[in-house]
């Protein structure tokens, strides 16, 4: 049997409930071959649950999912042959050494003992772990575990790789190493589904991003599209004379019709712009009012701001926030 779908992942209306709690509430995903797709959301948004359903680790309560055209619900054994999963918590055996782990997984995948040992040696070298080959995993650092875990997922050379929060809990340097490894992987032609709660991670690695919040997809697109979709760029101004802040704010409001955000202590004004061209109008208006400025720059929104705008709350854990005006945000089709 061979697969023929053009899409690596095609899921529609995925639902997962745990008792009264709906963890995933009708998520659609389409991931093309060869792309890195990021699923971005705060803790408890349903990212891992979605990924586990696609990886056959959780049953799908409602909806349909296909991996390379193979139905996840009815043909789990086939799907498992197509997907490599690297979990949020390193899924390797603590009591075994790195080599023993990789040989174990290699043998389970049907390799001969010799082939499994060769593949293990090669992978450990690629991941800079050969010195730790004979050490038990319980003595490994967090970063080493993650890398070994990723190496284990690659033994079968799966065409699709799931990375569940690959850098959560890693220090910045190890995180950078992990990113490099993932980039190499992508250069080799793999399709990658990555979940993350870090906006910069999605920004750095993903071709397209789906933003998930409380089990629902709230937006999807490239990081550029997401940033543009929030509408505004921001004009950051600093006045030479702080006492003119309120006068300047009045001018800005007259020109743009928007309330600027003021930081009077430093003479700063941040002006949301529907269109970056409007920056010139603001500057001309200030010149006419004889208000002089020291700096002016126009910035695209950060993904953090995008996230805030899309979900009505920041990227902190969903459970920690009070009920926001969440229902006002319908899925915004950006792509």
């Amino acid at each position: 049997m061979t697969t023929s779908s053009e899409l690596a992942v095609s899921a529609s209306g995925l639902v997962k409930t745990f008792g009264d709690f709906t963890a995933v509430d009708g998520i659609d995903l389409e991931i093309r071959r060869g792309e890195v797709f990021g699923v971005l959301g705060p803790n408890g948004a349903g990212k891992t649950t979605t990924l586990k359903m696609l990886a056959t680790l959780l049953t799908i309560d409602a909806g349909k999912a296909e991996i390379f055209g193979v139905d996840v619900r009815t043909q789990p054994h086939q799907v498992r042959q197509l997907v490599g999963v690297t979990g949020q918590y390193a899924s390797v055996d603590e009591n075994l050494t790195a080599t023993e782990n990789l040989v174990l997984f290699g043998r389970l995948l049907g390799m001969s003992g010799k082939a499994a040992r060769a593949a293990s040696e090669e992978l450990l070298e690629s991941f800079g772990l050969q010195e730790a080959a004979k050490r038990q995993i319980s003595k490994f650092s967090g970063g080493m575990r993650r890398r070994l875990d990723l190496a284990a997922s690659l033994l079968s050379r799966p065409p699709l790789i799931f990375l569940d929060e690959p850098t959560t809990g890693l220090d910045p340097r190890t995180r950078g190493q992990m990113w490099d490894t993932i980039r190499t992987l992508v250069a080799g032609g793999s399709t990658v589904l990555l979940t993350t709660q870090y906006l910069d991670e999605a920004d750095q690695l993903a071709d397209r991003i789906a933003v998930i919040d409380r089990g629902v997809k709230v937006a999807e697109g490239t990081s550029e599209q997401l940033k543009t979709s929030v509408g505004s760029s921001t004009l950051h101004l600093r006045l030479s004379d702080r006492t003119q802040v309120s006068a300047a704010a009045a001018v800005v409001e007259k020109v743009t019709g928007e309330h600027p955000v003021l930081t009077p202590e430093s003479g700063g004004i941040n002006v949301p712009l529907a269109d970056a061209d409007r920056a010139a109008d603001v500057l001309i208006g200030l010149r006419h009012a004889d208000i002089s400025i020291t700096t002016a720059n126009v910035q695209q929104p950060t993904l953090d701001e995008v996230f805030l705008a899309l979900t009505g709350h920041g990227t902190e854990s969903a459970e920690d926030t009070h009920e926001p005006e969440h229902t006002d945000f319908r899925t915004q089709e950006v792509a």
Partner: protein
Amino acid sequence: MAALISTYAVADRPLKTHPSIGETVSQTLTMARRAYIKMMRNPEQFFDVTLQPLLFTAMFAYIFGGAISGDVKAYLPTVITGILAQTALTASMARGTQLREDMDKGVFDRFKALPIARIAPLAGPAVADLLRYGIAATLTIAVGLAMGYRPGGGVAGVLAGWALTIFAGWSLSWIFTWLGTIMKSAGGVQGIGMMIMFPLTFLSPAFVPKDTMPGWLQAFVEINPVTLVINATRDLMNAGDVTMSVVWAIVGCSAIVAIFAPLSVWTYSKKL
């Protein structure tokens, strides 16, 4: 690096619909090897199959020997075979708690995500445990011989009883494997396991003759699988006879596997 971590084109990959018998066996043996390595790194896993036979055999023989059989030596054919069944049961109980602990670890997520037979992660450790039952049975018999036990069944009878004990331990371990897949914690498995183990061991002719018990209790003793195993090992080791008891013991143990192995795989797969 790039060459190594490249992936095959999807179309190159013929997908199997299910693991073959050969693959299932090889995956089970691979899992057994994992369990064996872990066992060797945690020698305390052998406490129950080394200290317990030594302690219980001596203790029970000296405590009950005089009361039940007149003297210790006359009691040995009863108590050694009884302890054999008891150790098989206690040693197999550890299977449930260990599986439960193991399943809570991250590596089981990977086992579930791999295209392998669902029974392999359950059956593999059960195969490795044969070593534990072997140690327990050997030590019990050795202590008995040292205390003056002279089995009437000779070497062949003793070896047959030894093998039957190991088979019984392996079969009974499937009950605890199933408990491991349905219970939420290792402590829970331990608790339920104890509640199963004590009635099964003591409501049997392991230490006292069945005739001394009230009639209604004898009815349970008759159908207790541990009774079947004890009767069979007595026939084999003390008389050297392959009787119907032996057949019934093998049938009973096989029935336990036939019921609890599929049940375990089913609940394990459902847990996904």
